[in-house]
């Protein structure tokens, strides 16, 4: 019986003989569902994109975990500590650093900056710095003392490659006296362009140069870890921190950029709710479409009942018909959604060029373009939600179809 119900339901759904008006409403339900699915997939892939960018772009430069020495001698033998840390499968790489923050002064502008002394070779294991810095800047960095500065910072201080600039660095004084800040001269040898806030706050220099500037002469100030599961960095940081032979301050990226991750999750859940609501309301239209169809097909139902079609297959017929609209809407929506999942950022970039307005400004958001990342599970979940909702929407009218009393209908005409 199933396939007969399918044959009839499908014929009803596709036939244009319906009165013009049912087509209008069924179109509205299909469009509503398609819209809901499409926009939902777009939003979800944008959120996935932001998460990927957070992980690959921001967190490829920002240290995941930092252990900085408590006492002034610093971490003398960081290689051996690094060696046993990398035994742990979570840890992908370890590198030393000496970090100091100061103020860059140029004419009347005074900009705060955090400069990290790094060992270029070791840094490759923990950060993806090289993909945000020009090739010859890397070359210069490896054989000339100098600083790679965030592009935004250099621009606001109107410094260009080769210029020298002074960094006022506080001098720590054991017995609390206010020593004058020391002014250290650096040469600008490269620019860092991540397209986000980092460009306005960070600089890199060679490890020895930084050590000289801050007084961490024997050991290094701390070690930086690259871990696999970035999103529970704080848990891993605490575990590993206590296992170290030397007293360290434990720090992870969430202290400074955790709010970015939280905002992404928040927007994702709000959008899910709203768009599920849109799909639900669109499904109401399926209900009304089906009711109209049932009303119009009363004659057919009656005669089918006279021919001995049992009630449950009448129900099946109209559920399939209703589902047809739901499936159509879902597949169209999912289709465009998947398309958007791949090309949304290009479309937006083209649109931004068209109207000359930059949606995401780099000093507020951590990136300045809309990234998208299509995750197939999002697609399936959206499709299933939409189909289930449209299925539910068919139940009431389909049951009503079964209650049509053939005698009333057939006899009267």
């Amino acid at each position, binding site marked *: 019986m199933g396939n007969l119900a399918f044959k009839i339901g499908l014929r009803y759904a596709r036939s244009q003989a319906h009165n013009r008006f049912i087509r209008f409403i069924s179109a509205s339900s299909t469009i509503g569902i398609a819209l809901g699915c499409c926009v939902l997939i777009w939003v979800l892939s944008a959120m996935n994109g932001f998460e990927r960018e957070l992980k690959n772009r921001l967190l490829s430069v920002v240290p995941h975990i930092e252990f900085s020495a408590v006492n002034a001698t610093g971490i003398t033998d960081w290689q051996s500590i690094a060696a046993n840390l990398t035994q742990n499968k979570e840890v992908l790489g370890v590198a030393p650093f000496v970090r100091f923050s100061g103020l860059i002064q140029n004419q009347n502008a005074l900009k705060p900056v955090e400069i990290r002394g790094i060992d270029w070779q070791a840094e490759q294991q923990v950060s993806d710095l090289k993909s945000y810095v020009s090739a010859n800047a890397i070359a210069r960095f490896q054989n000339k003392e100098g600083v790679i500065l965030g592009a935004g910072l250099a621009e606001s201080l109107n410094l260009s490659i080769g210029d020298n600039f002074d960094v006022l660095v506080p001098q720590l004084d054991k017995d609390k006296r*206010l020593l004058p800040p020391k002014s250290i001269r650096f040469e600008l040898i490269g620019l860092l362009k991540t397209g986000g806030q980092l460009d306005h706050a960070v600089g890199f220099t060679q490890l020895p140069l930084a050590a000289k500037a801050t007084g961490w002469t024997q050991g290094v100030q701390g070690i930086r870890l690259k871990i696999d599961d970035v999103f529970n960095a704080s848990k891993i940081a605490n575990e590993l921190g206590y296992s170290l032979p030397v007293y360290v301050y434990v720090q992870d990226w969430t202290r400074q950029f955790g709010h970015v991750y939280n905002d992404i999750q928040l927007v994702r859940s709000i959008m899910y709710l*709203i768009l599920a609501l849109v799909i639900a309301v669109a499904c109401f239209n399926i209900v009304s*479409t089906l009711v109209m169809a049932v009303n119009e097909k009363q004659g057919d139902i009656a005669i089918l009942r006279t021919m001995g079609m049992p009630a449950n297959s009448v129900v099946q017929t109209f559920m399939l018909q209703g589902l047809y609209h739901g499936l159509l809407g879902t597949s169209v929506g999912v289709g465009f959604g998947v398309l958007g999942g791949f090309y949304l950022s290009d479309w937006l970039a083209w649109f931004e060029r068209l109207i000359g307005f930059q949606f995401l400004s780099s000093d507020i958001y951590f990136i300045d373009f809309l990234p998208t990342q299509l995750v197939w599970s999002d697609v399936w979940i959206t499709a299933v939600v939409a189909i289930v909702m449209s299925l539910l929407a068919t139940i009431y009218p389909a049951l009503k179809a079964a209650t049509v009393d053939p005698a009333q209908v057939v006899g009267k005409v």
Partner: protein
Amino acid sequence: MFNSTSLFIAHRYSRGSHSNKFISFITFFSVAGISLGVIALITVISVMNGFESELKKRILGVIPHMVVQIPDNQMNERQELLDQLKQQTDVVGVTPFQQEAGLVQSPQDMRAIYVQGIDPDASAKYSIIASNVIRGEFNQLKPRAYNVVIAQPLADQLNVRVGDKIRVMLAKGSVYTPMGRMPVQRNFTVSATFNAGSDVDSNVVLINIVDLNRMLRKKQDELNSYRLYLDDAFNLNLVKQNLTQQFPGLKVSDWRATKGELFEAVKMEKNMMWMMLALIIAVATFNIVSALVMVVNDKRVEIASLKTIGMTNRQLILVFVLQGMYKGCVGAVIGTVFGILLTFNLNPIMSLLGVGVFANPAYAMQGLPIDLHWHQVAYIASSAIAMSLIATLYPAYRAAKTNPAEILRYE
């Protein structure tokens, strides 16, 4: 044209129990859809307004709305210039104010900041900092006392408490001595710490404008820079416009230079939210269309008989427009009422449900900031009703188009 008969019939139809139980089912959903959309819109937008106004109150409490520089040639008629400024519409207060880039240094650390020279007595009643002092006294900033008010988070970073000394250095105004350039610097005593809850708190420190003038080597009473407090930082263009007209010489700078993009981003996020939520109402109004069509379908016999007794198409259209509108209005009204109710006690409800509030500690204590703009509520309700009006046009038109002969022939 307004014909009471149409209203009479429409009212009876919409209130009457529909013969077809199903139509009331669909009507319920169309009303529910609209009110759901309206509730969501009012609540979410009010919360976003709340965020924006919090942001505005805190950040634009610390960052000056507008700063005017009085050119030297107008310095002698400065006083009546200031009085005129005070009478400007939307200007709430005018206080002496000068801001210079600089840094503060403690034995522990050094931070870049903006030094804001103020007159504590004049600005006490407008300044958000004055009203958020946690330790020490705001009015200690006497001239030449060389006291400074800093944010508590900054104090923690510098590891200083009220009474400690910190060094304040300006980026410009250096003195050239035979031993090279000596930056202008002076030791200040921390006389109070504050927490205005904005993330720009640690970017500013407050000293008396006389002290700042001295550091800048200006004559003490040479106050040529003033801060304008506006009642709403957002209607800046208006004030700026008539200022530049009335006082051509005045050099005016405003908050948009530094924080413009932040509020631009907030506005963009709000617009996106508007669009998404309006989608719900739009799709819901489709329900009205289908519900009304079914009523027309259900009542086609009565329409035919009404036509036979001479009812004109226009009257018939009015009957069904009014009936559809009735549903739209009910949906909009219910949505508005519940939206307002939900908005006003959103926080108790949220805490009841144990829903975690945002990561930002500032909001954790007193919950989500909520700012209901009545004009927005009116706009949402009226657009919901307008949409439902549009939704009724098609079915009403169809009702008028029914051909009585066909219908009556079958009976």
